[in-house]
């Protein structure tokens, strides 16, 4: 990870910008949305403190200590993943979500909420994202 950051530093111009955009493991909320209504079904089993998050934070701390990049700005937001049905949500998370699992009880609740909400209801997960801007030192 640090070696990749060293490579990025090499190909950036002096004063160039490094943007770090990544998800965090934070037990993301699972919701059913029907028009303006948002209903909570529960949360993913996605414990905070994922080793990948820790490693990424440590790598950025290293490049700051080494004087390669200077932190300029940080932020966070929620990224929506939206499916037409809870079953599609479950299939996607089971197959592709590396850091978390959809508990059976949450899936069942999402199905119940979708059935009661009627046509057009969507299942969604809001994933916590962090974004940070770093600048390569001039020298």
């Amino acid at each position: 990870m640090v070696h990749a950051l060293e490579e990025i530093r090499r190909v950036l111009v002096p004063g160039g910008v490094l943007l770090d955009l990544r998800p965090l493991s934070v037990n993301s909320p699972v919701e059913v949305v029907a028009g303006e209504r948002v209903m909570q079904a529960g949360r993913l089993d996605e414990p905070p403190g994922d080793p990948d998050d820790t490693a990424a934070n440590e790598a950025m701390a290293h490049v700051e200590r080494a004087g390669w990049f200077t932190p300029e700005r940080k932020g966070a937001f929620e990224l929506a993943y939206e499916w037409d049905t809870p079953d599609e949500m479950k299939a996607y998370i089971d197959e592709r979500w590396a850091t978390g699992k959809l508990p059976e009880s949450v899936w069942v609740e999402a199905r119940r909420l979708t059935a009661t909400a009627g046509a057009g209801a969507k299942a969604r997960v809001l994933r916590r994202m962090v974004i940070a801007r770093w600048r390569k030192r001039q020298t």
Partner: protein
Amino acid sequence: MTLRKDPEGIETAHLRDFAPLAGARVLEVGCGDGRLTWRYAAAARRVVGIDPDAEDLSIAFRECPAQLRSTVILARAQAEALPFPRETFDVAVLAWSL
């Protein structure tokens, strides 16, 4: 399967707010299937998207919008060994890849 990621464009808005993309030479590390790339590339002078995953890259090649084909270059590469000369880019985007 119908998955819509970021249907309201929140991620794209943050990217544009945080990165000086206008006229920039951008390296996107971990471009994957290009989902994010297509959303900002029009503002840049040049975007080079790299990813080690051949399957994702093949999707990106296939789905690159026609109007971006002169702006976006896609390549299979690892971040640990970037095949570019020093000081080539103004902005590097680590897209879900750190």
